[in-house]
């Protein structure tokens, strides 16, 4: 059960209009690294929206998650340029190193491995993004040296 003390603070930061649904969900996601069910129930009653609609939106967008994400997000870029230069091999090597599959979070909750469709650093393909830092020209061999993973 997550600590929901700061939830009301998040909700009150935006007006209680249905338009704010996605924006509020993003704030909740940023705070808890996922959308706790209790928070979604609170959010639905705050915006006076049916719970079904709140869950529909929560399930639709890739940036939102109903299960907790890791403290650090490791993203393998699967853009076209990265794909051509071997993103699948990078993904395989990361899965092996982190011992989690793409889309999973480690048991200790520290890391999540995800894919992203292009981060715009195609000249450095294939790239891996850790939180908001981009690492270019990765190889299955050199990803072991990425900071934060060692």
């Amino acid at each position: 059960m997550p600590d929901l003390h700061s939830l009301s603070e998040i909700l009150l930061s935006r007006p209680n209009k249905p338009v704010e649904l996605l924006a509020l969900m993003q704030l909740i996601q940023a705070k808890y690294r996922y959308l706790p069910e209790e928070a979604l129930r609170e959010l639905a009653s705050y915006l006076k929206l049916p719970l079904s609609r709140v869950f529909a939106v929560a399930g639709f967008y890739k940036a939102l998650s109903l299960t907790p994400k890791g403290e650090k997000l490791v993203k393998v870029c699967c853009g076209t340029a990265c794909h051509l230069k071997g993103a699948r091999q990078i993904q395989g090597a990361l899965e092996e190193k982190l011992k989690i599959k793409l889309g999973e979070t480690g048991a200790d909750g520290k890391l999540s491995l995800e894919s992203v469709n292009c981060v715009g650093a195609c000249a450095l393909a294939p790239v891996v993004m850790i939180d908001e830092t981009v690492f270019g020209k990765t190889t299955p061999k050199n990803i072991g040296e990425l900071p934060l993973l060692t």
Partner: protein
Amino acid sequence: MRLDSPAGLKDFKESLLAAPQGQSIWVCGGPGCLAAGSQVVFEALQYEAFKRELGHKVAYRVELTGCLGLCERGPLVECSPQGFFYEKVSSNDAPEIIDKTLMKGILVERLVTNPQKPNKEHLPFYEPQNRLIMRRFGQSSPGNFDDYIRTGGYEALCLAFELGPIKTSKRVEDSGLRGRGGGGFPTGLKWQALREAKGSPRYILANGDEGDPGAFMNRSLMEGDPFSIIEGLTIGAFALGASQGYIYVRHEYPLSVLRLKNAIEEAEDRGLLGKDILGTGFDFHLLIVEGGGAFVCGESTALMASIEGREGIPRVKYVRSTEAGLWEKPTILQNVETWANIPLIVLNGPDWFKSIGAPQNPGTKVFSLVGEVRNTGLVELPLGTKVSTLVNQVGGGVHKGRKFKAIQSGGPSGGCLPESALSLPLDFDNLTKAGAMMGSGGLIIMDDLSCMVDVARYFTGFLVEESCGKCAPCREALPLFHKILMDLTTGKGQKGDTDFLESQAKTLSTTALCGLGQSAANPILSTIKYFRQEYLEHEEGYCRSGRCQDMYFPKIDSEACKACGACQKSCPTSAIEGKKKEPRLVLVSKCISCGSCLKSCPFCAISAQRRPNA
């Protein structure tokens, strides 16, 4: 300081121009250079300047700027007023740049390609370019209001106030500008439709949901010159009678969100957004909406649904958005690059705009040039430039020894065009006619080691993930296509797969509900159209590009092999053997056909051979 009249803005600009500029060092802050470490270079330069206490002695600036373009050679640094263009700069170069260039205006020769011509305009990469949208990259700090005004910012808005809404709108309508986000719909028609639409309030939207993989034009623009988008939107709002606007930005671009947010706040403080803009009584409010990471939200009706706080699912367009769009009110939606063209057109007039580019395709377009070319980066070319100029001059051609195979444009909605496309002019109509499309401007160059079936599988896999699931053709057909393509690329292909794919893909393109669904078949249709032989080979279990595992066998040409050993080093299973100075040999028993050796050979002496059973 709040500017309260167009005359006040003019005075302000003059006072800025009167102040000495001094030596400036612009460090590229584009996505490519940032990833290559330009932030560290920037901080090192600042620190070195600070250490020498230069601030007391001379006027100087060390700043990050918008994307300089040649990502391949980053981190890049441009020095004004001389225009020295430094490539592959590291933080170790900082002291020398400060001592020589900043303090004395002298060139650091080892950092430029040609010391005789140290400006970027002399490089083949830049020569055919016409940087209009990107004109402030290398001249201003993104989000610096004073820089924006100094470089002619908001002059177009002042002119629009003088001209009045109708004449302003006419300028855009007469310019022939076409939407830069994808289909190339005439912008003028949208403006005219909104101008004549009934109902209020009306909304002005900018699409910055750049979801095509391999494209970063919009990102570079939002991060490099946010004010130009805001000014374009403000002019649009004034001409079309709106007072509320939204910029929809892709979730994966946090820096774009931040730069736009700061720019909006700054414009509000200066009296150029919000209530009573420049004392004219005109109000315009602008908000940013951050997307939720869904590709389909780049589609206009899905984007509007997303702004309204719902799932981004497209609707059927019985009624145009200009009549009933956001909250069922008249709405205009344009790509951020289209908006950035508006100030240029209003200020310089439609005839000037039509003098650039090609007939029916005026102006320039920003492209991201990536893939297997020597110079990857962000380029801005007049529409109608030959594809060969782009690939061979700007891109520097494919890597040594490799052969050009295809150019992919338009992202997952676009297609792959073969070598014959090199003679095409790069514009909306020619690309569509050939079976690809302009899309937002992502161009991916592929060489003979790229497998066209694999590329189709890649894009189809992408679209399976991103299909919203509303209409059956897109929801049901794409996973089926993906399975067939998966089989074809793993040696499980069947005779007749190609014909089946082709006929079903045609059905998808005629029955899907939204534009993205209709174009979802393009990657398959275009690759079958131009590379059918490769598909047929895949049906037989052979991949000539050496890309699909277990579908070929690497063969080393003993005459071309220079015995350098690069393939041996790259092989993960030690399947390559050979004595010193003797041609290398592949061991069938150990080879897993991963393709590492084909890529590694500097002499292109390794080819993908058909397996005996295929």
